């Protein structure tokens, strides 16, 4: 069971993944992913749960009228939509600039050097 899952057909030796994992290049890729994904996940979960808590326990504040019949509850709800779209766009930009080039460099070397 020790054989690594097959790579491309024609690949005989699986790459030394432990060596790749400990390389500085891979460390940068990992850091670029985690330093974005982890804090942003914590932030949007906190913002969402904060909004749920406000809806449950701060009815008076949420009922404050902002514009016409639009109240704070609606504005914050629509803001949840806006931040979701924004974070999706922001992550994709981050991934294209910081993750994809590094991932592709490592991948093409690993798959090409046999």
């Amino acid at each position, binding site marked *: *069971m020790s054989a690594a899952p097959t*790579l491309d057909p024609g690949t005989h030796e699986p790459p030394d993944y*432990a060596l790749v994992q400990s390389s500085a290049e891979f460390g940068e890729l990992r850091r670029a992913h985690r330093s974005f994904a982890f804090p942003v996940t914590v932030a949007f979960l906190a913002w969402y749960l904060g909004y749920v808590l406000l809806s449950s326990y701060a009815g008076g504040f*949420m009922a404050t009228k902002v514009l016409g019949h639009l109240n704070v509850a*609606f504005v914050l709800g629509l803001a949840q939509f806006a931040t979701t779209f924004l974070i*999706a766009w922001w*992550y*994709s930009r981050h991934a294209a600039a910081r993750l994809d080039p590094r991932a592709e460099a490592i991948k093409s070397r690993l798959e090409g050097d046999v």
Partner: protein
Amino acid sequence: MNLSPDVLALPLAAGGASEHRGLIVTLFAAFVAATLGLTVWAGRQTSGAEDFYAGGRQFSGFQNGLAISGDYMSAASFLGIAGAIALFGYDGFLYSIGFLVAWLVALLLVAEPLRNSGRFTMGDVLAYRMRRRPVRTAAGVSTIVVSIFYLLAQMAGAGALVTLLLGITSEAGKILVVVLVGVMMILYVTIGGMKGTTWVQMVKAVLLIAGTLLITFLVALKFHFNVSALLGAAAENSGKGSAFLEPGLKYGATATSKIDFISLGLALVLGTAGLPHILIRFYTVPTAKAARKSVNWAIGIIGGFYLMTIALGFGAAALLKPGAITASNKAGNTAAALLAEQLGGGPGSTGGAVLLAVISAVAFATILAVVAGLTLASSSSFAHDLYANVLRKGRATEKEELGAARWATVGIGGAAIVLGVFARGLNVAGLVALAFAVAASANLPTLLYSLFWKRFTTRGALWSIYGGLASSVLLVLFSPVVSGKETSMFPGAHFAFFPLENPGLISIPLGFLLGWLGSVLSAEEPDAAKYAELEVRSLTGTGAH
């Protein structure tokens, strides 16, 4: 607007009902014929496992984004959320936000690494670094449990929907519809595999968006594109005044219902990225980049759809006669259909009949596409995880494995028909919330630990999956969903020891805790070489299938 009380009580069975019914059935038959044609066409191009499980991995990011939307937007979100907004105003709107924000978890943490390191099922990734057979068994069990609960909700919903939209009230008629839905999903999946299912979901997504856009546009015309005017009219017509636009009508009653809402919110936001029928969709695109693109499209489409449910729900509250919605269906599930009829010119008018028929056919299409996705997820996991890798220890041929998948589809479809017939009266919302809670408690922790925590072990994975699964199912069993209340499955029985309807607040943290505890307490050293392989592959796409 001269509605007699009789018309209000059974608005769709009244007047020219036979004409409405004929139109609805015609549109629905057209959808069935078109999708079956697509399925047969897709089936001709399906030969191996790659095609059957993953649609040949040849769909584009946009196509898959559309299919994900079709897989995700169930009748519960189309009819249920519109109805909840129509009845409870702002509190109904809260649902859709959780359903949408949840996609960021999938985008940032799950979609790309899953695509890079797995082949066909969630179990591929979970079992990667672990002792394979026990973990695959656990992954298969939890995949099938989550999918069956979700499937049951859709089947029960299909029966209820027909009663409401076609005016069929006989038990035989309802059973016939459940059987029909079951047979259709078996055909879609056995013939078309993932390719056929994907096309059905894309067609459905386009229909659903088009139908919703049309209704939204008509509502907007009525209010001259003024959101504040729409909200004001809804508040006034609801008879609840500005409270209709504020939190609390549905969940603000007691301290318990407030905590219940937090529990639901947690399950919604963390459940999506653990739903097996959503996860397998990421395998249908060629690369992780395409998986990312498909989630971005899905976020755009699903977000746009949920924004339009505001127009649907508040439009129904503003334009329908007070009491008309609850008179038709207590849970508000017919609000969207009634609104369509009203916008077309009201009950009895040709325009009303046409719009009602269109929206009803869209609702049927929605159910069919979602049940096909769920059936595929559970039969894939049965064949690939349980049969090929556990029972046959990886020695089954591709042909044998696909045979098992097709038979599993027939078996699961048959089980869904039987359960669906018995589940006709069950509380649909409870079943869906349970599926999300189980996915968030049993699947998500193991998925995240597997991908990101090097000390995670087999024991941690098993504790987390089985612990999350058992705690969420047991807590629901002893909750007011099952017994003790008028709305329970067994209103006469009293064993509701757990006060919340949604178990997420307890079972999700428990799933994470057990995964950590099991790993820390296990004598087995985590397999560092396997983790290196998984981490490199999941982040770079090296050796991706």
